[in-house]
């Protein structure tokens, strides 16, 4: 297996995804007394091309998905998929944070659980907390919220202010 350098990886992704990349940033940080470098890649891609981006990563090494972080900005639902690639040797690993913006009214994106089964827990969490529809997600039940939780309330959206309001609505 070939280990990519961070800037080569970024240009590889840029070549293959071209104008589907809305924003890209290579971040270099240092660690330890010797100030050795490590890298994070931040990439924003178009929703339609998101799966292609994940497939590209899969062609290099089986990517490790840590989690999806969700953010309701009030206009959009932003998802940041935290991936890492090239584990196994010192300083070779690169963090790749793929960002994708979804319509707030009817947020929907293709599931990647067929590519990476380990993404199921986090997709289910984002589904119930932000109301994002993951097309192709095999298990649509709630994971952290109870099964009888109201279907139209998404606790991590901006309009939710906390438990009190939820309790009042229910009683």
């Amino acid at each position, binding site marked *: 297996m070939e280990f990519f350098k961070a800037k080569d990886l970024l240009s590889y992704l840029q070549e293959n995804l071209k104008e589907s990349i809305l924003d890209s940033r290579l971040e270099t940080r240092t*660690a*330890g007394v*010797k100030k050795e470098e*490590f890298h994070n890649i931040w990439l924003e891609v178009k929703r339609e091309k998101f799966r292609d981006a994940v497939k590209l990563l899969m062609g290099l090494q089986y990517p490790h998905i*840590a989690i999806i972080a969700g953010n309701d900005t009030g206009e959009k639902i932003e998802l*940041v998929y935290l991936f890492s690639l090239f584990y196994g040797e010192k300083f070779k690993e690169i963090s790749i944070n793929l960002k994708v913006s979804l319509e707030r009214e009817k947020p929907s994106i293709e599931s990647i659980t067929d590519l990476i089964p380990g993404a199921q*827990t986090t997709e289910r969490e984002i589904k119930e907390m932000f109301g994002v529809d993951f097309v192709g997600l095999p298990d649509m039940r709630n994971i952290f919220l109870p099964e009888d939780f109201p279907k139209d309330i998404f606790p991590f959206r901006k309009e939710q202010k*906390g438990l009190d309001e939820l309790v009042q609505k229910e009683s």
Partner: protein
Amino acid sequence: MSVSTYKIPIGPIHPSLAEPMTFNFEISGERIQSVDLAPGDNHRGIEFMGRNRNVVQIIYLAERICGICSASHPFAFCRAVENAAGIEVPPRAEYIRVIISELERIHSHILWAGIAAEELGFNSVLYLSWKVREEVLDLLEMLTGNRINYGMFMIGGVRRDILAEQVPKIRETLQYYKDAYQTLEDVFLKDPSIALRTKNVGIMTYEDALHLASVGPTARASGVKKDVRQDQPYSAYADMDIKAITPDIYSGEVNGDVYDRIIVRILEVFQSVQIIEYCINNLPEGEILSEPKIVKLLGTLKKAKGEGVGRHEAPRGEVIHYIKLNESENPEVWKARAPTYNNLMSWLPMLQMQEIADIPIVIASIDPCIGCMDRVTLVDPGSNKKQVLTREELVKLSIEKTRRMVR
């Protein structure tokens, strides 16, 4: 011929599990056919609470995500904020951070070893390992003031220094653990009855570990050489040569069973001892905080804008925090991920075709955070008969199996 199955729900209060959680088992005879997981009974909405707090207040919230990983979450959180705001941490603080985290790993792994022994029915081994664990808790108390929830981490450094007069006690404790290695190896790795109960039990293959995004000792026991301290070193780890520990180092082969998970954790205890020794010998002089005035630090952070990711290899695997600062009092997004979250799915292949009596040790083998089990209900749909097993009865089943095998 159709195979008739019956269901066993375990939980929400259940055998040695991270959070109260329900397992619904489909059983045929003595073997598990399938399992369905239903977590969520302990969802506290900590990230939601973080929306009403500033970043310095969130450190203390992050510390309380888990009582055992109480250095790991603030470590990852502080790294995320430092990444977002571009704060450099003084070298001395980096080394102190690593010392505290590695001491935590020692206590966590030995705690786990004791719990695993109890699940198998060796209560004397539980007492022995927890006696060994006491030493590191005493040391942590001396260094930080607390046995858990150390309150050491601050954005841009640590809150307390390690003094010259504390170093001899640290060395003494490290020597204690070096001496204890032989005991732990004899008890956990050379004992034939522990080997009988754990070898070829709860197997997860290399492919499963990779595809299910497993982390920590759970992944390494299946041969995935993944360890943040090795792959993307940070703090003092960058100055050392750390190798991810896989069971073949000890036994020459990787089976991905419960026994391999014991090997990885026992070896990691002594890897931690070496790391702390290196840190003590090479502890740089200097400041421990990049900005000692917390009010000034908060002022800077309230003007900061940007996203950051902080990763740390906790005892159970990678902890990752994501933060988005947006020039405001409170962060716009804070997402925390504990290792057990990723390891949840690992239970599915591990529990497949296992016996009921092996459920406790297989569930415990990924080292989920808190251990507590109340009852197990056995439901036979044919006769509609309902039978409730208490924690004692399930553990008794497990102990009886050990006795049978040892005999």
